[in-house]
């Protein structure tokens, strides 16, 4: 028997909504293990979110509606994005609403409003955060797109389902272009999700924080939404990378069997991916903000090499 596409859609959405905190928790646990600390457990993020939802909201006097609207928008856009990237099955109805470029732009929308929210209160921190965030993003986005374009040139399509199915059914060969692109993608993903060496999610030190600085003034359910969306974003970037570069095992249709298999594969990939990221994060120290251009530049270089390699070698 097989599931109806919309059922799959729902399944995927609920999976991401439900398990994104768990994934974030898993990352934290891994990190603690690697750094030899005792972890708070995978479920800690759930507790945090619940606690935040429970709290009252404290708003600065001059916060405008943009400040209050942003968390909802962030959450909403993230959820839509979650519905777009095919994770377990290629046959995903929502996936047609936005191709990979639109997806990147959707994340851009989130960033835009978060940055505005950062400036809304009118504090030095907020401005600093927004400024740095937008700077990094404007350097990261080209590299991001280049990395993805390599894949879309290979599959000559920008629609995710098409890309995934092409890559999935391509017989397994080492394609230098994709290798380069993947490397670039990882670097960018670290930057986009605000991880070390670009940003440090676990700090409130004014000199180091970027994303945190923007949401400094948030509290209560607003903060909860933002945190939750952030966790989903992390998961989504992994998902995006997986489905763009190594979608093997993803189910072509809705048969339960293949779906189950796909789920297992996905879980494994996510765990491995998380491990990789944790190792990188532990291995590296956070960069000075003005060294970031070099970092992102090298990512861009890798992506470009990937594209050139595609035209020259394949």
């Amino acid at each position: 028997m097989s599931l109806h596409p919309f059922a799959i859609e729902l399944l995927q959405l609920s999976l991401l909504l439900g398990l994104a905190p768990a994934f974030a928790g898993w990352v934290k646990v891994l990190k603690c293990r690697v750094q030899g600390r005792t972890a708070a457990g995978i479920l800690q993020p759930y507790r945090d979110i619940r606690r935040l939802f429970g709290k009252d909201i404290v708003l600065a006097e001059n916060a405008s509606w943009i400040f209050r609207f942003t968390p909802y928008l962030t959450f909403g856009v993230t959820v839509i994005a979650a519905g777009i990237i095919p994770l377990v099955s290629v046959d995903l109805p929502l996936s047609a609403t936005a191709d990979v470029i639109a997806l990147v732009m959707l994340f851009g929308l989130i960033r835009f409003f978060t940055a505005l929210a950062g400036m809304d209160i009118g504090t030095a921190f907020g401005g600093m955060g927004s400024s740095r965030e937008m700077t990094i993003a404007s350097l990261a986005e080209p590299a991001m797109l280049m990395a993805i374009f390599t894949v879309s040139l290979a599959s000559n399509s920008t629609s995710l389902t098409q890309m995934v199915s092409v890559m999935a059914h391509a017989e397994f060969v080492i394609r230098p272009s994709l290798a380069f692109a993947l490397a670039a993608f990882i670097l960018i993903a670290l930057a986009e999700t605000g991880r070390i060496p670009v940003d440090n999610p676990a700090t409130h030190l004014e000199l180091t924080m970027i994303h945190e600085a923007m949401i400094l003034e948030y509290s209560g359910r607003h903060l909860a939404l933002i945190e939750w969306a952030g966790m989903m974003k992390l998961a989504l970037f992994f998902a995006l990378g997986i489905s763009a570069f190594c979608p093997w095992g993803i189910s072509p249709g809705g048969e339960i069997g293949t779906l189950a298999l796909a789920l297992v594969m996905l879980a494994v990939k996510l765990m491995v991916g998380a491990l990789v990221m944790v190792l990188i994060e532990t291995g590296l120290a956070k960069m000075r903000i003005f060294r970031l251009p070099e970092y992102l530049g090298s990512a861009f270089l890798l992506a470009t090499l990937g594209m050139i390699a595609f035209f020259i070698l394949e």
Partner: protein
Amino acid sequence: MAPPLDIAGFSVLLLLALALLAPLLRSVRTLQIPLAFSLGAAASLAAVIAGVITVADGSVASATLTLGIPGLPFHIRLDPLAGFFLVVIGLVGFFVSIYSIGYVKGYGGVRSITQMICFYSLFLAGMLLVVLADDAYFFLVAWELMAAASYFLVMYEDERAENRRAAFLYLLIAHVGAIAILLAFGVMAGQSGRGGFDGYTFDAMRTAHLSSGWAAAAFFLAFFGFAAKAGVIPLHVWLPEAHPVAPSNISALMSGVMIKTSIYGICRFAFDFIKEFPWWWGCVVLALGLISAVMGVLYALMQHDLKRLLAYHSVENIGIILIGLGLSMIFASFHLPTLAALALVAALYHTLNHAMFKGLLFMGAGAVLHATHERNMEEMGGLIHRLPWTAALFLIGCVSISALPPFNGFVSEWLTFQAFLLSPALPHPLLKLLIPLGAALLALTGALAAACFVKVYGVVFLGQWRGHQKPERIHEVGPSMLGGMLLTALTCFLLGIFPTWVIAWLDTIPKQLCGGRLAESAGKFGWMWLTPLSHERASYSGPVVFIGILAVVAVTWLLLHLRATRVGRVPIWDCGFAKLTPRMQYTASAFSMPIRRVLGFLFAVREQVEIVPQTNHPAMPGTLQYRLRIRDRFWNWLYEPQGDAAYWIARQVGKLQQGRIQIYLLYSFVTLIVLLVFLG
């Protein structure tokens, strides 16, 4: 229903009449402004109708007026391309006219309203005529009418030196461009093979068969001229001078539509007159487009004068449009009609979009100026509390220009990206490889634009008031200004949500110009799904994205508001820092500082920090002054040398006139001898 050409003609005549009768309107005192500008709006609307019909049914109508030189009477013609630009001009004209009713009131008593009305309508008429003209002479007349009218409008506040300077620079560059275009027409007419005045008609130029050399000469002369008007880098220097100092409704027209007429001209020359051209033409256009886009947005980021910043963004967006055009030309030169159609549609779509959101933004800037009498962003802040409506509408403009879904800017940039990714279809290996790299630059542009508008909106509307005057004095602008902005914003939204309809409507233009069509593939899955070439390639659905986001937001909001929670309003926390003053906020310059550091080598940046150390402790500076000056490098690269050269030559020439009559006699003597010697 009257044929579109008549409607267009009516609209032009109405405007010209308005210009001529402007002095009479003075008699109706208070009604003068509403009456004049609602007539302007009506005329614009007529133009829109004419355009919409023409583009929709792809009809071509032409007529000949009895004016002009006999043997070369004024020809007018209305084909889909012209129709499309009628719509662009008309729409913005319509919105801006409504807006002006409120805006121009602000000048009442201070300056001559009659002058404003007269040149305003002449300006609109000129733009419409540029699009309608069908022979070289009439085209240039209209072109210069447009230039002259806008020149006087830039000069409107002529007691300010910056206005005079800007106006002069603008007129000069515009005129050089016009002469270049004139020469291009000269080439076309000369090579058209038709004798006498007949060669000057566009028909002759359509049928002309030019040798490749002449064709290149004609196209690049024309391109130079149009680029000068469009503000393509490095011919852009007048734009950030002229657009800011003009009255804001005029800035909206200039940035929104006037510079688009040059896009029209380039399309005419490339696709309509010359048709067969080598691929490298497209590459030149593409390259210049990319440069303009990136440099434009970077310079924009460095500005802290709101309108100046927007002007630099016009440079950027013209660049984006040219990118589409360039790609389209490249595809067309390799005879890939469908792909050429896609790129062309992308370009035209962005033309329309930019007209909308840039118009909206300039109107917004005008509203801010109107309310605060301030153009310097460093003196603003927190206006969202004082001007809630303006703020909301301005935000839509910002989102649109930052190419973020679900608004219109995104759609056209998305289409341009799609065009980029079609490069593998090209037979030319090098192009295959290079063109996608351009996509990266486009991405960079988009991201920087987003950054820039976070800065604009954040500094102008968010945060706290930085200015010296009391913010309580600032009040929301009147209904007509809001109305104009509201309609524009609405259009931005609709253009973003229903691209399939727009593309279906546009379809006649690519069909006419490069033989390709897009509609049936783009709209195969109904109005909801935009699939430019095929659904396997790429697809986007504005409606679903919008509805989806809206739905999720609504649901979450409802769920979270089931339980009543207290929302406490408290002073700013800011990690518990005490005594936070508005001066501590990030300023515009501060916001763009990281980018200035990273890409500073592109500008002529001069930073000065003066620290006056306090007497008791050197580590504690008493006062600290920071001065930042950023100049357009192109000034001292291109323009200053030219000026110096001109004056040097002038000095040398002046030596001819050195006063003593014997010398003068000697001149005539020598001239005679020389002529006699070289007689044989």
